[in-house]
């Protein structure tokens, strides 16, 4: 899905501007869909394809900031490139703070628009990749048995097998076996690798005990 061709959604109630933007983006080889209102756009299903939205801040009905919020709620964090008219600067700053990629004022230069769109698509692509990686990692963690998960948590703190064994009240050999299974299931190439995965997956690491003599 991530490698599917990216798609740009253009939302503007003005048919002249919408037509021009759609035409331009298509002419550079992008997939483009145009919408005459934010409501129409929000009815469209968003899949995990790299995409972004080119949106006019001041269209009647639901405004651009609402769209941003609505998308965030649906977990479709599409980057938005805002186009603005005269006097919209305060709203744009607001939009920027809420996470818009960029804003361009009318009349905009096609090249600037393209740069903003490309940047937005790239951002989304990376975000999707990260999400994908994360869900893979999570699935792998879920495939571990409770014991294996426990062992993994200690392993990534750098404790030796012997220490782990003592901590869990299990012999070292068993720990070694668990460790091997963890490395296999997690498909980690090295301890460092495992540590990175644990971080990404947000695995809770046990606190070190006060050293006992």
């Amino acid at each position, binding site marked *: 899905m991530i490698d599917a061709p990216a798609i740009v959604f253009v939302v503007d109630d*003005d048919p*002249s*501007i919408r*037509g*021009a*933007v759609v*035409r*331009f983006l298509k*002419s*550079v080889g992008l997939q483009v869909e145009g919408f005459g209102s934010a409501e129409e756009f929000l009815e469209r299903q968003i899949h995990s394809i790299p995409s972004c939205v080119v949106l006019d801040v*001041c269209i*009647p009905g639901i405004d651009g900031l609402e769209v941003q919020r609505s998308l965030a709620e649906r977990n479709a964090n599409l980057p938005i490139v805002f186009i603005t*008219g*005269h*006097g919209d600067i305060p709203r744009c700053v607001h939009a920027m703070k809420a996470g818009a990629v960029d804003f361009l004022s*009318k*009349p*905009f*230069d*096609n*090249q600037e*628009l393209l740069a903003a769109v490309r940047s937005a698509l790239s951002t989304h692509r990376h975000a999707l990749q990260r999400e994908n990686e994360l869900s893979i990692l999570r699935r792998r963690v879920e495939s571990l048995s409770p014991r294996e998960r426990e062992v993994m948590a200690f392993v990534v703190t750098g404790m030796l097998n012997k220490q782990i064994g003592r901590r869990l009240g299990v012999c070292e050999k068993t720990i070694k076996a668990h460790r091997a299974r963890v490395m296999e299931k997690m498909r980690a190439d090295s301890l460092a690798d495992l540590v990175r995965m644990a971080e990404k997956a947000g695995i809770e690491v046990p606190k070190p005990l006060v050293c006992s003599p």
Partner: protein
Amino acid sequence: MLARLSATFINLPATEVDRHIDRGLQLLVEYLDIDRSSLAEFSEDGRQLLVSHSYTRPGFAPFPRVNIAPLWPWYTAKIWQGELLRFTRLPDEIPPEAVHEREYFGRNPVPQSHLAIPFKVGNSVLGGIGFGSFRRVIDWPDDLVKNLRVAAEIFANALARRRAEEKETRLREQLVLASRVSLMGELAASIVHEVNQPLCAIVSNAQTARRMLAGGEFNLAEVDDALGDISRDGQRASAVISRIRGLFNKAPLERAALDLNELIREVVNLCRWEMTRRGVVVKLALVDHLPSVQGDRVQLQQVILNLMTNAADAMEHVERGRRELTVRSATDRARNVFVSVKDCGVGIDPQNSEHLFDSFFTTKPGGMGMGLAICKSITESHHGTICASSNSDRGSTFTFILPGIQENVL
């Protein structure tokens, strides 16, 4: 005879004054059995003395309708000073210092006797009336002169009244214009937006078309499409400018048969962006088959725009999603046309209801208080009325009513 003259002029509307003065002069000429009578008025700066009315007995040389100040400077100066001039035997009695006058009467027919009576209103001399006799010598006895002075007064008063009315009309027109210009300010955001949109699309489409051509391999149909859109958008921008220019026009009053529904739609279109920006939702409830109204298009649009702007102002403190403005048109059996603008804003304070349409009455800080007064002035000049009421739920409704053009019943 004086009584008759007086009665004629007493309540004469400004437009009738000229005709009656001409008639009055004729009456005097015939009554006095003289041959010519003319009325001349000073221009506002006092430099010109223009003959504006004259009656000449058929067969005699009419008095030229010119500025006599350069021709007869001595004479003009005397009139300006309010001095009565009595000549029994002309041209002998022309004083030596009146050089131009002597010269003039060397070349032109001169009456035997002439009487010039300046007429004043208050302390200023507005002009004078001259009486000339060719056929006989008249020595202008005192009681005759006294009566003619009274006649002159009557003319003077009528003229003064007319001048005042004309001035008032001019001022009112200037005010209407000034208010229109200030209303244009309200439209500024709309104008800018409506022109900027197509321009933005034009720039983008042009860049795209060039890009397509530069790429070498291009689809001619696509390039043609882009150019077609450019053309269309150029016309869109042009149309907006035309509409705005129409509103700025200082053309004198143009009366035509108007469809108020069309006027309403145009105004709504013009301020669409401004209303959107202010979060106001405009609803239209226009009735079909509205009778036409005789009127000035721009002035009536000015009224509609003013009422809509006021409505938007009244709703400033209403929650953004709920600012509703409704423009309605209606008619009745007498073919009157009703246009109303309804809002859901602050409404009308009963204390103010008497003064709403007064000049300089405003409830807005920084407001000039002329908007509604001008709306009233415009409506009334169209033989209509304007009124306001508070709605039963919230907000107010402003309505103006104009007489519709009656259908010709065959």
